[in-house]
């Protein structure tokens, strides 16, 4: 008996309308790129949810580690000068 398989896992990203961000919709199984695209279409755009699809093999996704959250993300928290509200504008100035 051969080992059974359910094909590889792919991640599906959908764009809801032209110009919008691609958002993770979920996963599907497929053995090749064409099948992955078609399975994504048949699974995630049954209600007209999308105008464009990306599929990516799950194995190609690199995710950050929660243990690294401190060094990865906390240092950005005090860089308030990156936000427009940090700056004091003179009274009466318009369109800035």
């Amino acid at each position, binding site marked *: 008996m051969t080992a059974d398989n359910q094909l590889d896992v792919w991640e599906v990203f959908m764009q809801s309308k032209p110009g919008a961000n691609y958002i993770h919709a979920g996963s599907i*199984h497929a*053995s090749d790129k*064409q*099948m992955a695209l*078609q*399975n994504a279409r*048949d*699974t995630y755009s*049954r209600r007209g949810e999308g105008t464009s699809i990306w599929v990516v093999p799950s194995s190609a996704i690199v995710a950050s580690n929660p243990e690294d959250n401190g060094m990865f993300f906390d240092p950005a928290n005090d860089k308030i000068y990156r936000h427009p509200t940090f700056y004091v504008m003179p009274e009466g100035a318009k369109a800035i």
Partner: protein
Amino acid sequence: MTQQQALYKYSLRLGDNALILSARLSEWCSNAPFLEEDLALTNMALDLIGRAQAMLKYAGEVDGNGKTEDDLAYRRSEREYYNNLIMELPNGDFAYTMVRQLFVSTFELFFFEELQKSTDATLAAIGAKTLKEVKYHHLHAKDWVIRLGDGTAESNRRVQQAVNQLWMYTGELFEMDGTDALLMKDGIAVNAEHLKMGWIQMVTQILALANIELPADGYMQTGSRMGIHTEHLGHILSEMQYLQRAYPDATW
């Protein structure tokens, strides 16, 4: 035969093709090789029911006796059905179903490309909508036939067997009778005979990519234009029409 009668029969034929193939494809529901393909087959079945609805509704309108699409689907008997025989053949294995999808969707690719130019506005509109659906059915079937043909020895054998078995039912797709001739004069119907070369070329190319041999020319089964079917259609209809026939006064 008047033009009205011809148009009625022509729309019925197109409706029946969609209806009966949808019946077969929907039998795959909860029976597909894996979950994603189950969804894909159902999507195609749903496209086909939609097409059957539109075509049969139009047939009812042309007929002018107040028959709805459901009356036509659920109250006609075997001899009054005009779908091509290939649509009603039992599903067989997944290879058989995909090869049928390839043969039919390749034909329909050419057919609806032409029908969308029909001088009959309704047929043209249905044709244009259907063409988009059929392009996807064709892509899906083509990819699967190549995948299976060029997959394992077993899958290749199954595809070859399906091609050999289904081949004799492909001739009927291009058949024309008085109905077609009458409607073609006014640019309503498609000249199906003209589509044959394109079909053969495309199918040959795809089967070559799939390492599948084309069967030799042989006898082509026929009969559906006169409502003469295989034994299988009766069983599809007796299941499909069971409630409507058993409870004729009920609405559902």
